[in-house]
């Protein structure tokens, strides 16, 4: 186990290195850099643009820049943001925290809703409730996330029950500690719900399909023969056996903690990494993108590691090869 962990972590370090190299290369692939659009401004001269590029070392070949960046990383410096004239790491830190709050809540809700929903539709397979569930998931799949989020925002506005975005009210500063927590929770509700709803159909379908397979197994019949209550049969007997693909999905849930909420954050102006990243992507603020990529890779590695450990733990037949 310890050996397995150390080996995985060593691989993870290698992986991160590879990710950084490839990402860096990819980022160079598309033409134009951060300062290119300035060239189209009639009031800014090419000399100034060149000067700015030189200031950030963009005039040097990318392997050199990469080496420079990598050296910085070992000192905890993720490079500069061109747009913000400031180091990337502190930019990311605050926003990453907000994003994690949002995605963490949303993932939790999504799983908590999806598991019973998936199980129920597996159990009531072919009945009207299952069919209705099918229609709803299909509908959710046809509605692009972006539209869904906008519709939810619209709902918030029209009903007036929910805040229309942001993470805190304008009066946040005047609130007590408890009040602040409540305020954040109040603002969190809608984006988290939106994100949960967007992730729901895939989860429900996977759970449903996995449960259907397991519910046919003879040991389920045997469990019922022993008079074990239905919900225990479903949760204790069937679910762990059906869990295999769900665990992989769960790993992804963890892995995408930083990136899953991009659109929600943009639409519902949640002060997470999303708007920053989107802007950085479009503006080619490469070190911000790179920083986010590296941070997400860490989550990816963690998510998959957790998934693998869970996989080994839940299904004793899988041998942990170490």
């Amino acid at each position, binding site marked *: 186990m310890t050996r397995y962990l150390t080996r995985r972590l060593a*691989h993870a370090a*290698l*992986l991160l290195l*590879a*990710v950084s190299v*490839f*990402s860096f290369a*990819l*980022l160079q*692939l*598309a*033409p134009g850099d951060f300062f290119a659009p300035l060239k189209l401004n009639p009031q800014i001269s090419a000399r100034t643009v060149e000067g700015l590029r030189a200031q950030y070392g963009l005039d040097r070949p990318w392997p050199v820049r990469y080496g420079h960046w990598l050296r910085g990383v070992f000192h905890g410096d993720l490079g500069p943001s061109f747009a913000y004239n400031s180091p990337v790491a502190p930019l990311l830190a605050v926003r990453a925290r907000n994003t994690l709050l949002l995605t963490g809540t949303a993932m939790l809700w999504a799983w908590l809703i999806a598991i019973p929903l998936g199980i129920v539709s597996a159990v009531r397979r072919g009945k009207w409730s299952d069919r209705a569930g*099918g*229609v709803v*998931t*299909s*509908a959710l*799949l*046809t*509605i*692009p*996330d*972006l*539209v869904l989020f906008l*519709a939810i925002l*619209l709902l918030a506005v029209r009903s007036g029950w929910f805040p229309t975005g942001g993470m805190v009210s304008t009066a946040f500063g005047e609130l007590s500690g408890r009040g602040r927590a409540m305020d954040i929770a109040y603002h969190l509700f809608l984006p988290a719900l939106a994100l949960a709803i967007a992730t729901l*159909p*895939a989860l429900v*379908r*996977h759970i449903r*399909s*996995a449960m259907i*397979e397991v519910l*046919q*197994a*003879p*040991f389920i019949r045997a469990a019922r023969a022993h008079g074990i209550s239905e919900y225990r049969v479903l949760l204790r007997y069937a679910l762990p*056996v059906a869990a*295999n*693909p769900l*665990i*992989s*999905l769960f*790993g*992804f849930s963890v892995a995408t903690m930083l990136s899953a909420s991009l659109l929600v954050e943009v639409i519902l102006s949640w002060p997470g990494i999303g708007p920053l990243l989107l802007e950085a*992507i*479009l503006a080619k603020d490469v070190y911000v*993108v790179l920083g986010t*990529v590296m941070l997400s*890779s860490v989550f*990816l*590695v963690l998510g*998959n590691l957790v*998934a693998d450990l869970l*996989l080994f733990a839940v*299904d004793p*037949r*899988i*041998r942990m*090869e170490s």
Partner: protein
Amino acid sequence: MTHRQKLVGALVLLAAFQFLILFAGFFAPYGFAAQDREQPFAAPTTVHFWDTQGHFHLRPFIVDSESSEARVYPVRFFVSGTPYKIAGIIPAQVHLFGVEQPGRIFLMGSDAYGRDQFSRFLFGGQSSMLAGLIAALLSVSIGILVGGIAGYYGGWVDELLMRGGELFLALPWLYLLFAVRAALPLHISQWEVFLLLVSVMGLIGWARPARLIRGVVLSAKQRNFVVAARGFGASDAYLLRRHVLPQTYGVLLTQMTLLIPQYVLAEVTLTFLGLGVGEPLPSWGTQLASLQQFYVLSSYWWMFLPALLLIPLFLVFYAAADALQEIHKTVAL
């Protein structure tokens, strides 16, 4: 109804849909690029059977109330109109229905350029269905291959492939899309650009299905019947093909039913990033993408119609996958 019948039913429905799409030129009253600049965002035309006096007419008609005096245009069938090509080859110009110029029949309303949404929906299916299927198949088949091998052989093969998958998942592919788009020659047609982008997306989308499949395979290969089959001298390829991978059917089918809509709609996100299908090429993604504009969403309900039509389509996919899974029932032991 048995599962086989269900499957056949679903496939027939799908085939019918494909037929509509394939012969879009015939079923659509207008070409997909035909603009009517006088009527952007026109609401769906109501087809009347009863006139104002309450008389019933067998031939339906529409009323154009936009122009100064309301004019009545009867709906005509098998009219000749914009030339098109059947299945992209045979030129023709007969349309199933239409109305006389300057009347316009918009069954599903018109879009920002005054183009017939119904026609665009039918034509859009050609690219979207193809794109969805190609991309989903690409992702899933690479996923099967990689996931199957990683799970089956385990050990360093697994480590290598899964770390490779993580690398793939971690990279900022958007830039590849940007780069591909930017590097393409100017004269490659929108259609090809679109297919290329979708294929790239399909190609890089394998990592997720691969991991799902690998997880299942890790457990599936330990089943007694796999061991038993090895006892007959079955090769690894055979075991994977006949015993191990079939156990991933459930996951695979679910992935497919999720990926097809996902890739069909991938354009919506692409459009958001400015990488969508180039105009005037129609696609479902672009039709839905217009919904992401607040004014469309809040003002023109008929812009939802394409989405509404897609729901049953995806349901049929869902039903087909469901039936397939039932037929292929693998009891988890």
